[in-house]
């Protein structure tokens, strides 16, 4: 039969010594070499467009141009001329340029990217009236649209005219017209 009173001190001291040894051993096993680095960055996504159509009229010809009034964002623009069925429109660029071309949906597309603050070259729309038509009573309406510059899979700047915006606040028209 063990005499706990007599060997108690011995047992406690031995346990303490073993405990200290164990602690030192554990500390050695956990000291792995590690290191780390970090870095971070950001860029602002500026969105938003503001375009203004400019129209002049002389000799039954509308001189159409579009200004990108945005201070930041470039865009692509297109225009469309609406008129009565009995009228005809002849398009031309006064300076012989080839910046405008007819495309889908009856629109005329401005080929270059319209940089922020820049104005497009002029597209002339000559109104051809039928014989005996009342020159003081007809409407020719020009609308303009713009879309942000995006890139295709090949990395080429392109316009996505199929984008349908989700209104996030209030419903608004996407088109603006100017009456003659």
């Amino acid at each position, binding site marked *: 039969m063990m005499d706990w009173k007599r060997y108690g001190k011995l047992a406690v*001291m031995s346990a303490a010594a073993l405990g200290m040894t164990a602690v030192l051993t554990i500390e050695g096993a956990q000291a792995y070499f590690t290191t780390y680095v970090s870095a971070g960055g950001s860029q*602002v996504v500026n969105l938003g467009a503001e375009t*203004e159509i400019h129209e002049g009229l002389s000799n039954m010809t509308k001189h159409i141009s579009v200004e990108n009034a945005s201070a930041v964002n470039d865009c692509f623009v297109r225009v469309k001329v609406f008129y009565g069925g009995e009228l005809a429109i002849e398009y031309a660029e006064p300076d012989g340029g080839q910046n405008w071309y007819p495309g889908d949906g009856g629109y005329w597309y401005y080929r270059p990217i319209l940089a922020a603050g820049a104005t497009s070259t002029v597209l002339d729309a000559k109104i051809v009236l039928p014989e005996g038509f009342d020159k003081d009573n007809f409407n020719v309406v020009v609308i303009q649209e713009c879309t942000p510059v995006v890139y295709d899979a090949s990395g080429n700047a392109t316009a996505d005219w199929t984008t349908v915006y989700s209104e996030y606040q209030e419903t608004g028209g996407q088109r603006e017209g100017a009456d003659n």
Partner: protein
Amino acid sequence: MRRTGRKKKSSNGKYVTYVLMALAVLLLMGSTIGSTRAALTYYSENYTAEITVSQIGVSLLENGEVVSSRDYDNSEWKVSTNQGGESTSGVLLRSMLGEGEKLALNKSYDEVLTVKNSGSIDEYVRVRIYRYWMKDGKKVTTLSPSLIDLHFVNEGQWVKNPDDVGTGERECVELYYKGILPSGAESAAFVDSVRIDGSVAAEARVETNGSTITTIYKYDGVEFHVDVEVDAVQTHNAQDAIRSAWGVDASALGIL
């Protein structure tokens, strides 16, 4: 007679105590000597033998330039970043756009991210990539992180955390470098480009004022953020070291 017997037993007990104490002290001294042994340098008349202390180090590179590094050298941590000064974190995306260039949607910009072992010992490496949106100092949670399209490459070399696979919506992506990254070596890239998805511009309203049309986008002025953390751990006793440092089973991940 009884008294003499008790005295004998008592002195025996004390003797055993002293012997055990002496053993315990020897054990303690032995374990301490084990820890300091690595610092021993031996000199002799004709030769000098030096033991190099293990120096771990790691660097993050962006498009070939060191962005941030932290190396253990001469018993101290040497931290350097492309911010300079006291900064402990580097800057990414600083050269993404040229002078006067504007961020274009859907356009891929070069963003080659690699890791270099800048220490003197081999190591295992893990990276964590965080991508998120901020506006006016607050995190934007209505925009998906996946619209920040980081193009992950070398997926055979960089093993994705199995929990992240197929969940492109997650803000954090965790990648483990498969195998050892030797001292001085640079890893294969884990990202090579970044692209902002055009659908960030999907929500807009249009206002007309005379002959002027203004398109106001919901997320105009939003910032995209990319943060990268790189962790490295020793290769010695790798299984336990990785479990201790990163909390993962390296064998199960297949990176050993």
